[in-house]
């Protein structure tokens, strides 16, 4: 049965949600409003003057075929990062869940990568795959494979995906592991008595029961791939070769903070905001229907 608390009057509930409202206002609505406002202008970097251009910044962006192409790059990148961070995490969580002894040690070790900052993770992976001194690229060379992410766009994409997903595996692992612990043993044991083997039990019982967690992680990881990965891209590829790893948020960052084109950068962040907003709505509308709480 649902529990419902009713308040008498407005003051107390308002007071209770005030901290959240204030934080959202200061850290989201105010800057987002600024971005929308600035996206209508072409300002000079020093803030000395600005030209009102209406939707000119948006027109300029959408007439650029490279900008349009970066939507596809972003979609591919986000899909790959989400998959590469969730599937191994689930696999590891299932393995750790089956352990009777020492699962604490595994858990701790698996969580460590999450503590590494994205830019640092980028440098680590770059070092391993460096075309000249990298350990991994050296072994690949021994196997007769010439690794060169500096010119090969697919390899560059692969590398930034791995570097971005790596730290997230820990985060996802933690949630999957907790969710697995919450799956009632009795159901699994009942299924086992009925003769269901491990993988059958996993797909018909465990996975559906994990669906709220999976859904939550899906939303969170997509948002991560869209917004928080520019540090990795900046350190590893700077968006190259050509434009093969230029995702939307990286272009926001470079146009705004490297090139000081604040008008275009603001317009891009508004577009990004809309894209991610729509994506989240879609996820809640369609994917959530398949989630059993």
């Amino acid at each position, binding site marked *: 049965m649902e529990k419902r608390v009713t308040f008498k009057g407005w003051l107390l509930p308002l007071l209770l949600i005030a901290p959240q409202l204030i934080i959202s206002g200061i850290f989201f609505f105010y800057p987002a409003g600024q971005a929308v406002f600035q996206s209508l202008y072409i300002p000079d*970097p*020093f803030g000395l*003057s600005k030209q009102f251009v209406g939707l000119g910044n948006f027109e300029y962006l959408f007439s650029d075929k490279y900008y349009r192409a970066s939507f596809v790059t972003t979609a591919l990148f986000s899909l790959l990062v989400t998959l590469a961070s969730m599937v191994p995490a689930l696999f590891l969580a299932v393995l750790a869940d089956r352990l009777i002894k020492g699962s604490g040690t595994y858990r701790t070790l698996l969580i460590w990568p999450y503590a590494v900052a994205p830019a640092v993770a980028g440098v680590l992976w770059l070092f391993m795959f460096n075309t000249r001194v990298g350990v991994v690229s050296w072994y690949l060379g021994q196997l007769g494979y010439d690794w060169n992410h500096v010119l090969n766009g697919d390899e560059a994409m692969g590398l930034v995906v791995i570097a971005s997903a790596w730290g997230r595996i820990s985060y996802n692992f933690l949630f999957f592991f907790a969710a697995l612990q919450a799956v009632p043993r009795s159901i699994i044991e009942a299924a086992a008595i009925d003769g269901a083997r491990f993988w059958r039990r996993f797909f018909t019982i465990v996975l559906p029961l994990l669906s709220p967690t999976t859904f939550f992680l899906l939303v969170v990881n997509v948002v991560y791939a869209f917004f928080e990965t520019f540090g990795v891209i900046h350190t590893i590829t700077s968006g190259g070769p*050509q434009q093969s790893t230029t995702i939307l948020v990286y272009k926001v960052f470079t146009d705004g903070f490297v090139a*000081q084109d604040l008008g275009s950068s603001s317009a891009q962040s508004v577009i990004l905001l809309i894209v991610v907003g729509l994506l989240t709505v879609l996820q809640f509308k369609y994917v959530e229907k398949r989630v059993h709480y």
Partner: protein
Amino acid sequence: MIKPTALALAVATAGVSLTASAQTEIEFWHAFTGRLGELVAAQVEDFNTKNPDYKVVATHKGNYSETLNAGIAAFRAGEQPDILMVFEVGTATMMAAKGAIKPVYEVMEESGVAFDPDSYIGSVKGYYTTTDGKMLSLPFNASTPVLWVNRDALSGAGIDPDTDLSTWQNVEVVLNQLKAAGHECPLVTAWQSWIHLENYSAYHDVPFATKDNGFAGVDTELAFNSEAQVAHIAKMGEWAQDGKFIYTGRRNEGGANFRAGSCALFTESSAGYAGISSEAKFDFDVRPLPYWDGVGNAPQNTIIGGASLWALAGQTDEEYKGVGEFLAYLSSTDVQAKWHQDTGYLPITAAAGDATRESGFYTEKPGTDVAVIQMTAKAPTANSKGLRLGSFDQIRGIIDEELEGVWAGDKSAQEALDSAVERGNQLLRRFEQANR
């Protein structure tokens, strides 16, 4: 928790130290770390000892882009430093920001220090001077691209290490020989746009952009997709496909390969001297940047890269006087000559170059004057004075992307340069609009 008495004491001593020093503090933000950072710190310390009225405080603010951004953000907050180091790519941005800067010639005039604009080397100061000859910022560290040669690699491939490499025609012969001898990295480069398009254009006296490369107005358009540049990029693309030119990245990543001895020829800034001379365990040479014999008016002169010092607006007269003193100190012959010899950067005054020659430095370390000669042998033309293009950091990014298409064999040189020009022109139009 700090005890009230301790706090009071701290406040009191802070107050005392403030009043005790009648010095004017000059804030100087720069982008140098490592050895260069130490050399700057030494200059500042020397100036402070010699000028007790002023105290220059030098602060490292990250790489070139980060330093410029820190300066801009500080200006917006009204807390800008007195002197900001800005890389050459940011020059047009600074020049357009009339209310944010105080031109160096004004600073010098008002501070009353001796200042003779003619004592600076034309091709160095030209980059930072208006068309009517007014110096807006002081060139600080200026370098130009040269050819670095691993002599051991040449002899290893059976090539005379003293062979003439002054033209790309000759270089091509050597690249073929190196390749035939099984060398894995015949040619590598740093800063591809700067060396193989910007300097290439100046060196062959062909325009990089219209309106005198942007010096004559912000309504300039890019022009580096003409025959001369396309031919060079096409050749480089061919070499990349044949494994004679190895692409290592957009910045100076190739330096590590060259210093480790794995590459034979390396086109890089003359300022690579400090790193190469300290790390290379092989016999190396500095040669002038090669040119295509018969193309344009080559060899004209190459142009500079590096940074200059800008005085920012909104400071007191006292501080500007100190800025003037400091800039005059940096330009003085002894300081410049030492800087030039320590770093491989060009001397910014002719006197500093002469002093270095007289001291016997060039004969002692052969090749260190190659860059100076290459810059100053001929009076600069409208095509070789430098570049003054807005949003140039972004345009370089576009050029990098398009060139990568050529090196990977995805695009022809003509397609890539046409596309870079078209995309770059859009940015120039935006810049024109922002600074109308």
